[in-house]
């Protein structure tokens, strides 16, 4: 690689769907500007790189690493630690890396439950011998190793320190480019900041009409034909907007879905699900039956902590209980 003063960037995916890599590509023609300003030293989702390429780098060689995906396996952890050592600035990029995201909902179950479900119970699986993948196994050709599948999913910030976080599942292209521009210009805020998003909640940006209607019953989006102009919550559809950071541009709301919560909690809120619960139960109709309302929130963890479970207080308490056992 030619010696030059260009910024050195790495982009990695751990336990993620690949959507965050697509989000980087979605900056479109700005990719050319990125290429002009920076050398991409490592981006396995887009080009051929080997882990040995990274291992060969001196420490702190990479200026900024955009790490997407959570930590589910020993491989994820190994690369997170490796990239941490090789990078000056590490960014938890996207909801998985920042707060666990949808993969984090697997923490409702343990490793054994998940492996049994996937390798034995799913209708599409044919596995008469009940083989479950093991980290190490011997075959006639020799010993085979697989990364270890951990008991639970963790945001990358729980495994290695990160300087910044970029929320979103995935982060929207305009925000991605905004973050990259800030990186290129060297104009990053104090360490610990959330990049590429607003401070307050999504309701601030939402154009839907709020007329003060209180919730008489909670319904799921598929159970009603929602008024396209009215606030979802006022129609009894749990919308994560009140407890979700603004900045996405409301792509879900625009296509008639309530906010799913992927931009994580607003500034100053540590537990998105608890805050959302606090807000939605405060706006219930005085005539409504409370127990019915409670039972109408089917799958409360998946609804209130859809993206933030593995970074929540609820999760911490579960881990503590598991440790005691």
């Amino acid at each position: 690689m030619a010696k030059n003063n260009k910024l050195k960037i790495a982009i990695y995916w751990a336990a993620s769907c690949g959507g965050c890599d697509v989000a980087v590509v979605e900056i479109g023609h700005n990719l050319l500007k990125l290429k002009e300003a920076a050398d991409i030293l490592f981006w396995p989702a887009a080009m051929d790189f080997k882990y040995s390429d990274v291992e060969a780098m001196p420490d702190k060689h990479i200026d900024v690493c955009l790490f997407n995906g959570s930590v589910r396996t020993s491989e994820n952890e190994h690369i997170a630690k490796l990239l941490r050592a090789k990078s000056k600035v590490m960014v938890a990029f996207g909801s998985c890396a920042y707060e666990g995201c949808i993969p984090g909902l697997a923490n409702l179950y343990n490793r054994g439950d998940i492996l049994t479900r996937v390798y034995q119970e799913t209708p599409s699986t044919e596995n008469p011998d009940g083989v479950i993948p093991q980290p190490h196994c011997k075959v006639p050709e020799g010993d085979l190793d697989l990364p270890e599948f951990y008991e639970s999913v963790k945001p990358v910030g729980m495994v290695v320190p990160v300087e910044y976080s970029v929320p979103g599942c995935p982060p929207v292209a305009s925000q991605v480019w905004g973050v990259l521009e800030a990186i290129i210009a060297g104009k990053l805020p104090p360490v610990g900041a959330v990049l590429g998003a607003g401070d307050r909640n999504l309701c601030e940006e939402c154009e839907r009409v709020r007329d003060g209607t209180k919730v008489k019953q909670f319904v799921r989006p598929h159970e009603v034909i929602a008024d396209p102009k009215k606030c979802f919550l006022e129609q009894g559809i749990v919308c994560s907007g009140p407890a979700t950071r603004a900045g996405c541009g409301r792509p879900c709301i625009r296509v008639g879905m309530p906010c799913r919560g992927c931009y994580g909690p607003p500034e100053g809120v540590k537990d998105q699900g608890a805050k959302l619960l606090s807000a939605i139960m405060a706006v219930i109709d005085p005539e409504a039956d409370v127990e019915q309302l409670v039972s109408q929130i089917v799958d409360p963890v998946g609804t209130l902590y859809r993206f933030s479970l593995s970074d929540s207080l609820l999760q911490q308490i579960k881990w503590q209980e598991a440790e005691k056992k």
Partner: protein
Amino acid sequence: MQHTDNTPHSFKDEVMAEPGGELLQRCYSCGTCVSMCLVNQTCPDYNPRRTMRMVMLDMREETFRNPTIWHCSACDLCHPHCPQGIHISDLMRAIKNVALRAGYESPLPSAKVDEHKCSGCDICEKACPYGALSLAAKTIDGKERKISQVDRSLCMACGICAAACPLSAITVEDYSNEKVAAQIQAGHWLKKAKSGDPKVLVFNCSWNLRAEADRDAMSELPANVRVVNVPCSGRIDPTFVLTALQAGVARVLVAGCQPGECHYKQGTRIAQGRMHTLNHMFEQMGMDAQRVQFVQIGTEDRGRLPATILDLVAELKSSTVAVA
């Protein structure tokens, strides 16, 4: 419009002309309302019977000078018992309105909105049982935004809005997030030796402590119990509960009023919705759902709160022994 003692109306006529004030003269001063009133039990100067009498006697300034006329929170415990069918909270509202017009202000604390944090999401407006919050356009940092504003004359400082606000932009002074946290932590309670008896944290609606005997019993609880009194169980943000459990507290008990008897109309229902959903989430996570408990104490359930706490402590002790 300023009214002075020279106005042609009598004070009584003025109150009766106010919506809600119409039935004033039905009152024959039996005092049943006072016997039902929770405010009167903790603040004997607040006496709706006497206030109504004073209005009937045109004692305008004397009525306004009593700072307790603002204390009625419209819990309406008195209303079904009034033999004359007077809706006393409406009448107290009428008196407050006349006082407001005369330039008097409520001395009660009120909710305050941090305009920089507020997004205008409107959750508080729907949450407030008194209609004390509403949105108004304001220019903040050069941008026009809709911001929540508190009508001090309507606010009862119950704190329901403070818990409801997803941005923690609303504070009720004595029960701010920081002060509640400080009450929990006072004397380093959370940090005290983990080997001791399992800790029980009680968030109690202060209207639950009506009888002297209950207050005494609450002051004699063992050291592993910490009671944090709040104006209303609706002030309890589930974040408080989870934060305490995460800090090592074994059980959190939230005590509200019986539905229909809530001092702030809706608070206990809101708390019920929050705490029971927390229970469901604990079950879903495969955790011990008993770690969060919610009880609703009726106005006549004397002794129930301290007894519930002591039962909880005893049960916890026996279960710890069993495990060991």
